[in-house]
C-alpha cells in the first residue's frame, strides 16, 4: 500500500486527548518510530491534536479527530496505536468512494432520515455521543435492509451551515461536514459488514447556508436521506414506522443503543420500523431530576396509558424541547430520575407526544413506555412488553424478548404516531 492515504483515529466515549500515543511502522525501511505523546504536539484544535513528525522515509503530517492524515512518500505496512482501549484506529477506507457522486441540494421540506446537528462553529469534526449514535443507526438500517425485499442501494448526505461567513466558504464548510459523515459512515459500514459499502451509491452535496433552521446550532448540520420506498410496496417487512428523536439530559446506565436494539427486537417483528431521526444533548441542569407530581390533587393523576393533563410546570417545560420533532413524531427524554421515582413515564402535554426514561431504566423501559404512547395499557402477563407494575414491570419480564399480541399491534397501527412508510 502506498501513500498518501487516509485513515481515522476515532476518540471513543471517555477518551481524552492526552491519553494518546502512537507508533507507526514504515514498511520500506522496516523501521518503527514513535510519533510521541500528545503533549509533544504543537497545538490542540477542538480537543484533538494536530502535529507534524518526520520519518526516515520523509515528512508526514498528523491530524486527528476526523481530519485527514497524509503520509508520504514512504509506504506504511502497519500503523499501531499504543493507547488505552478507549481509542481505536480506523483502517484505511478502501471501500469508501473517494469521490462520491455530487448531486444538488435536496429541496427544502424533503424529510431527512437522520439529522446530525450541533456541529461546532466553523468545524466539521464529528462529536462523540449523538453523532456516532445517529451514524450507527444509519449503518444498522443499511445492513438490515439488505436482507429485505427493498435493499437500500443509495443514500444522499447533505451538509449545511449557519449564516455566518460568505456563501463560498459556507458551501465548502457544508461539503466538509458531509464528507466527515460519509467517511465515518463508510468506516462503520466496513467494520460491521465488509464489502457492503461497494454496493451502495453514496451521493454527497452541500447546501451551505441556503436552508437555515431556527438556531445556528440546528443549522450546523448534516442531513442523511435514504431513498423513499416505492409505493404501494411500502417498506416490507414493515407495515408502519415510528420516528423517534432522542433528547439527552443524562446518559442512562443501560446504553441507548442497547435500549434501541431491545425496542427493535419487540417492534420490528410486529411490523413497526423504528427510525431515530435526531439526537440532541440538552443542557437543562434544572430538569435532570424531574418532578412528575400532579399539581392538582383533586384531579386524577397519571391516568393510564398516558395522561395529557394535570402535569406540573416542570414536566410541561421538558416537553417544550422539540427541536426537529415533527407533529406525529415522538420525543424521548433521558433524565437522571423523577420524583416520585419511575423508570419511565409516558405522560405528555397534548400535541407533544413523548416519554421520559430515567438513568436506572431497563433495556425494555423505552419499548414499554413507547407502547403506552401508541395506546397500549398494562397486562397481567409476565412475558409481555406491557407487563403490569403489580408484577414488577419490565425488570420482571420472563422469557425475553417480551411479546406484543395481535390486539396490541392493531391498537398501535391505529395510533397517529405509527406512520405509513
Amino acid at each position: 500500500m502506498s501513500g498518501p492515504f487516509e485513515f481515522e483515529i476515532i476518540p471513543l466515549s471517555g477518551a481524552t486527548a492526552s491519553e494518546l500515543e502512537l507508533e507507526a511502522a514504515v514498511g520500506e525501511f522496516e523501521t518503527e518510530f514513535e510519533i510521541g505523546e500528545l503533549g509533544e504536539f504543537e497545538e490542540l484544535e477542538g480537543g484533538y491534536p494536530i502535529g507534524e513528525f518526520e520519518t526516515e522515509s520523509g515528512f508526514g503530517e498528523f491530524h486527528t479527530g476526523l481530519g485527514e492524515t497524509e503520509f508520504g512518500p514512504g509506504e506504511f505496512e502497519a500503523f499501531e496505536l499504543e493507547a488505552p482501549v478507549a481509542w481505536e484506529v480506523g483502517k484505511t477506507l478502501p471501500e469508501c468512494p473517494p469521490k462520491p457522486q455530487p448531486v444538488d441540494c435536496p429541496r427544502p421540506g424533503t424529510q431527512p432520515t437522520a439529522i446530525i446537528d450541533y456541529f461546532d462553529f466553523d468545524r466539521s469534526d464529528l462529536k462523540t455521543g449523538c453523532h456516532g449514535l445517529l451514524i450507527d443507526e444509519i449503518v444498522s438500517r443499511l445492513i438490515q435492509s439488505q436482507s429485505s425485499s427493498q435493499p437500500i442501494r443509495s443514500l444522499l448526505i447533505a451538509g449545511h451551515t449557519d449564516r455566518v461567513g460568505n456563501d463560498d466558504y459556507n458551501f465548502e464548510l457544508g461539503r466538509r461536514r458531509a464528507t466527515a459523515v460519509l467517511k465515518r459512515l463508510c468506516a462503520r459500514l466496513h467494520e460491521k459488514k465488509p464489502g457492503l459499502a461497494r454496493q451502495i451509491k453514496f451521493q454527497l452535496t452541500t447546501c451551505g447556508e441556503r436552508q437555515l433552521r431556527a438556531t445556528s446550532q440546528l443549522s450546523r448540520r448534516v442531513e442523511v436521506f435514504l431513498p423513499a420506498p416505492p409505493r404501494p410496496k411500502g417498506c416490507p417487512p414493515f407495515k408502519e414506522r415510528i420516528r423517534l428523536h432522542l433528547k439527552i439530559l443524562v446518559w442512562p446506565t443501560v446504553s441507548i443503543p442497547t435500549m434501541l436494539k431491545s425496542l427493535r427486537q419487540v417492534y420490528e417483528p410486529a411490523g413497526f420500523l423504528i427510525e431515530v431521526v435526531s439526537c440532541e444533548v440538552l443542557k437543562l441542569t434544572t430538569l435532570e431530576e424531574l418532578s412528575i407530581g400532579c399539581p392538582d390533587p383533586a384531579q386524577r393523576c397519571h391516568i393510564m396509558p398516558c395522561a395529557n393533563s394535570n402535569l406540573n410546570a416542570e414536566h410541561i417545560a421538558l416537553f417544550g424541547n422539540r427541536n426537529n420533532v415533527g407533529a406525529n413524531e415522538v420525543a424521548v427524554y433521558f433524565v437522571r430520575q423523577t420524583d416520585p421515582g419511575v423508570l419511565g413515564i409516558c405522560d405528555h402535554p397534548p400535541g407533544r407526544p413523548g416519554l421520559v426514561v430515567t438513568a436506572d431504566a431497563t433495556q425494555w423501559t423505552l419499548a414499554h413506555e413507547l407502547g403506552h404512547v401508541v395506546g397500549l395499557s398494562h397486562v397481567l402477563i409476565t412475558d409481555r412488553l406491557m407487563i403490569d407494575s403489580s408484577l414488577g414491570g419490565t425488570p420482571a419480564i420472563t422469557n425475553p424478548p417480551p411479546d406484543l399480541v395481535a390486539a396490541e399491534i392493531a391498537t398501535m397501527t391505529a395510533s397517529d404516531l405509527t406512520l405509513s412508510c
Partner: protein
Amino acid sequence: MAISINQLRLRLGADEPSYATLTRLGPAILPQLGLLVTDRSTYVAANAASLAGMIGSEQAVAVLERAVQNPSPIVRTAVAAALARVQGPKAAGLVSRLLTDRDKGVRKFAIRSATAKPNPAFASRIAALSQNDPQPHLRALASQALSRIRRV
C-alpha cells in the same frame, strides 16, 4: 393488607410503581420500607423513601433518617423530595441537612421541601444557597424560597 418484603420490592422496582395503591397499605409497611431504603438497587431504595414520605407519620421520618445515609444521590434526592410531605422537628432537621448536600438534585428538592414546610430555621442556609450555590437555577430557587420563608 399484608405484603411481603419481596412483593413490596418487586412493586417498587417496576417501571411505574403504583404509589397510590401502595400508599393505601399504610404505616404497617414502614418497617419493610426501612429495610428497602438500603436495597442494593438505588432505584428501589429511592422509591421506598418516596413511599415512606407519602405514607407519612413519625415512623416514616425514621425511615427517611435511615435513607438519608445512603451514599447514592438518587436515594437522597428521593428523601429530599419526600420531606415535603412529612411534618415535625426531625423532618425539619433532615431538610436542613440536605440543603447543604453536595448533589444538586438533592439540594433542588430540599429547597422545595423547605418551601413547602416553611420554617425560619432554614433561612440562613437558604440565604447562603441563594448567594453561593454553584447552580444558577438553584440560586434562583433559593431566592424564591427565602422570600416565602421570611413571610412566615
